[in-house]
């Protein structure tokens, strides 16, 4: 064993002497740490941006009101929820935590705590950025086609999910069992238009009185008779329309 040990030692030392094995310089490890740190920060920024965008989109498209529209509203909210964005965020969150494992403090912490900590941190950053109109500014830039990259992401951010029976606009006519809403999201595109919503007798007593000129977000369900029956209505202030 001792001879074997000496052989191994000789072998390694001769490789070191001949330059076959070289020490990596300290700067290599510093650079590696900096790169990982940069990747963590970049991923957290992207993650916070996506979380902020998801919240902005849900609020700006009036989908948040759906949660107050009973079971049908909750169902439509779930159907129109940006699940792909959520999955992307979860993947990014796991990626951040895997990167964090590079640092000593992180691997000493159970992964679930690390995930919870990162989530709270990201939510706090998203909350902070929501106090400054980052997404509103980017939306305007996108609408004005100033930033092509953001155009795809933001162009529908404020549009209510009309294909799922959710409309936002101004009431232009009111009848006993129906009303017409003119939906205008101020982008002068194809989704601006009129929609007549029917109100069933049972529903009539639950909805607030509506008048022509009222701003509102409404949700209706298409029935077999071809009419869309109201299941939720929330009056808005004009400022909430933008």
């Amino acid at each position, binding site marked *: *064993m001792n001879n*074997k*040990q000496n052989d*191994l*030692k000789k*072998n*390694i*030392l001769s*490789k*070191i*002497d001949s330059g076959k*094995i*070289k*020490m*990596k*310089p*300290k700067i*290599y*490890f510093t650079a590696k740490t900096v790169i990982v740190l940069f990747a963590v920060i970049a991923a957290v920024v992207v993650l916070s941006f996506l979380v902020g965008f998801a919240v902005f989109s849900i609020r700006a498209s009036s989908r948040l009101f759906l949660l107050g529209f009973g079971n049908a509203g909750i169902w439509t909210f779930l159907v129109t929820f940006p699940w792909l964005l959520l999955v992307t965020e979860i993947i990014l969150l796991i990626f951040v935590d895997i990167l964090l*494992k590079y640092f000593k403090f992180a*691997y*000493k*912490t*159970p*992964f*679930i*705590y690390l995930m919870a900590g990162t989530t709270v941190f990201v939510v706090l950053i998203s909350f902070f950025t929501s106090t400054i109109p980052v997404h509103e500014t980017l939306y305007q830039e996108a609408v004005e086609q100033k930033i092509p990259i953001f155009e795809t992401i933001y162009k529908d951010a404020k549009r209510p999910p009309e294909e799922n029976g959710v409309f936002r606009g101004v009431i232009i006519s009111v009848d006993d069992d129906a009303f017409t809403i003119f939906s205008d999201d101020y982008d002068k595109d194809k989704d601006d238009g009129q929609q007549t919503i029917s109100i069933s007798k049972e529903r009539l007593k639950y909805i607030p009185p509506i008048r022509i000129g009222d701003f509102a977000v409404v949700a209706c369900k298409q029935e077999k008779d071809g009419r869309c029956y109201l299941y939720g209505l929330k009056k808005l202030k004009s400022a909430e329309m933008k």
Partner: protein
Amino acid sequence: MSEGEKMTDEEIISLVQQKDKEKFGVIVDRYEKKLSRYALKFISDANKIEDVVQDVFIKVYENIMSFDTTRKFSPWIYRVAHNVFINEIKRKRNVLFYAFDFDAILPHLEYEDPLPKETANSEMKNLVEEELKSLPEKYREILILYYTEDLSYKEIAEILEVPIGTVGIRLKRARSILKKQIPFDVLSK
């Protein structure tokens, strides 16, 4: 006793970092047997052991500048060895070797480290040696580090890069698997 032999690992590494290449030989002398014994529990082909251990020392030398000499050296070298052995297993079997560690996901109560009491139990050590082959790899490794290499929970946690609670729970599970194979009175000593 030579000057190098009186020095601590950390003092020697500090000299190696200052380009005293010969001192690296002292590290090889100190750890060659330990690492070979550690490797033997992962790699069944005895002829491969020397090559793999040599790879460990090469990796250690290449990355020596990343070692912080204010910390303990032994967990660090075992960490390097762990990575080399895992890579060797992965390469050989073409599989992911416990890439996803469920034990490290959830928090566990921190088990008190009863090292001085239990390692004194040489009978337990021998039994662990004998029964190791029948255990899953992740339990096998933790038993080796704890009983054969006499490392503490904290050091094992550093080597495996898992929380200390995970070391505790994994050792507990490893012992309970051993309980089924070893007479209870030996384990409870």
